[in-house]
């Protein structure tokens, strides 16, 4: 079980309260597909991903990004129990979606950069450290049920 200090929990929940989940989620997913184009392999059915503009404007990317970050919110509601929160999703990503867990790490890093751009100096070094820990824990939980 991951140990979170009171300060870390505070840094997570107070920032999360200010996050526009739909906007940040869409942006994070779009950036994943733009910065690491090989990740597009999982989204053949999404239509036009031919350029950064196309990706950023793609409604399926937008909707799926929102879905992904909404799910992230579940981890934040269950910080003391992230592994079991993501057990089913982990199985899904392994058995049905066949996603290499390295991609979770990439998305986590991208989310951090999206948050940095949005919150600027409020995204302090302590904030970054806590959120890097969180995305690492989420990535680990999503990979946990792989077999």
């Amino acid at each position, binding site marked *: 079980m991951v140990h979170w200090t009171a300060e870390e929990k505070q840094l997570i929940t107070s920032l999360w309260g200010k996050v526009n989940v739909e906007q940040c989620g869409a*942006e994070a997913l*779009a*950036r994943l597909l*733009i*910065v690491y184009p090989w990740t597009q392999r999982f989204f053949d059915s999404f239509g036009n991903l031919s350029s*950064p503009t196309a*990706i*950023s404007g793609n409604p399926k990317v937008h909707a799926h990004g929102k879905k992904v970050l909404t799910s992230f919110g579940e981890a934040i509601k269950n910080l003391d129990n992230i592994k079991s929160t993501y057990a089913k999703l982990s199985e899904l990503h392994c058995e049905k979606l066949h996603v290499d867990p390295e991609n979770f790490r990439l998305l986590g*890093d991208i989310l*951090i*950069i*999206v948050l*940095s*751009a*949005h*919150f*600027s*100096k409020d*995204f302090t*070094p*302590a904030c*970054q*450290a806590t959120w*890097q*820990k969180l995305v690492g824990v989420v990535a680990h939980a999503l990979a946990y049920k792989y077999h």
Partner: protein
Amino acid sequence: MLTAEDKKLIHQTWDKAVAKQEDIGGEALFRMFTSHPQTKTYFPHFDVSHGSEQVRSHGKKVVSALGNAVKNLDNLSQALSELSNLHAYNLRVDPPCFALQLLSQSLQVVLAVNLGKEYTPEVHAAFDKFLSAVAAVLAEKYR
């Protein structure tokens, strides 16, 4: 690798970022130390606390080297050749690409903090490619 458009974006962005914050190098290093404490193992001789003069000074060195890389995007291998030797034979930051990826992440965070919306997906992609290329050159002579 780096397209002509990437190079243009890197030049513009780098100049803007360096002008905005004097201490981007020091800040990136401090963020990396805070987020990934294992990176401090390469600096046992440093005061790594916030605002440390050693970190500021080292940050300036890193930014200066990156600035040189930005001016020589067509020839990174040659421009970074001495630093490449240093990292391979003296510093031996291990594993080479992994630890440098941690610095790349923190550098990009500082760029995003300072540039906000201007750190667009296209700029982000260009910089990620650039920093990966730099890390690859620095790791070239490892074995």
